[in-house]
């Protein structure tokens, strides 16, 4: 039933915007935990129309935001990503170390290796997608 409603919603969305509905799945999610902060990496696989990851929430454990690390010569710079991350139609976006990632700050408690963190990914078109990401140590 739920699937049928989703399909209907997707069809309606396509009908209204003329653009196919996005169908984004999240894979290879992993949390790298430090005592007071954590980084989250994952891959977004979109088998539908374009979408945009607007924000990520990790309300149960801390304050999450989209960040990008970049190298400027030998200097590592870290900036908040404004405006989200575009997920192209039938495209794939990888968030990984040394690049775009989710940063969780102000951890309420240290995250234990082997536990998991509930994350809510908010997309412009697809809406919210909840995932459980396993916690690992730095690597």
């Amino acid at each position, binding site marked *: 039933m739920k699937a049928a409603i989703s399909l209907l919603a997707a069809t309606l969305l396509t009908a209204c915007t003329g653009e196919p509905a996005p169908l984004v799945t999240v894979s290879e999610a992993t949390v*790298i935990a*430090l*005592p*007071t*902060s*954590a*980084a989250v990496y994952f891959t977004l696989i979109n088998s539908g129309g374009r979408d945009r990851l607007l924000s990520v929430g990790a309300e149960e454990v801390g*304050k999450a*935001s989209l*960040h990008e*690390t970049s*190298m*400027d010569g*030998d*200097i*590592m*710079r*870290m*900036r*908040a990503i404004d405006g989200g991350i575009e997920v192209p139609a039938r495209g794939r976006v990888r968030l990984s*170390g*040394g690049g775009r*990632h989710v*940063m*969780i*700050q*102000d951890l309420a408690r240290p995250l234990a290796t082997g536990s998991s963190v509930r994350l809510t990914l908010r997309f412009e078109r697809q809406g919210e997608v909840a995932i459980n990401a396993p916690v690992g*140590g*730095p*690597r």
Partner: protein
Amino acid sequence: MNIGKIRIGLWLLVGLAALAGLVIALRPMPADAPIASSGSLIEIGGPFTLTGTDGKPFSSERLAGKPFALFFGFTSCPDVCPTTLARLTRLRTELGKSDESFAIVLVSVDPERDTPAAMARYAGLFGTPVIALTGSAAAIEQVKKQFGVYSAKVPAAGGDYLIDHTATVFLLDRAGKFTATISPNEGDDAARAKLQRLIGN
């Protein structure tokens, strides 16, 4: 004015320019002109005193006798800093030598938040000995200067801040002499080769 006069005028200009060039080229060089003076090379490294995870002063003399890999970071940096540290510990294991073959030294660029206790918790994550040093803002500034390291606070969401910083790993031999760097952009093979050279055969 006819074309001929213009042409003569132009040739005169060319001649003048050539003469000026010759004068500059033949000007005697001052005897003390610094072309390449070894004294002007910036020395990387040198002795320092910071604070260890026990809260006590940590002198670089304690590193003598063993090569070490030193880099700068901060414990609330979840992305590149732990990756660099994890890579060094992994390469040390891969080289098949003991944890004693070279020391891994992390110097905080965040003296405000990185207390000795925070450094101890952080270093403990890697399951292998890591010397984690912090210190007063002035002491850290001094060590940054010795290694030519840049760092600057950048504001983050909710009044927090992050720190842009030099991500180079500095390799120093058992006498504390700077020998090479490992850049984060370098592959594991190049990094492994440099570490191998550092620890000798």
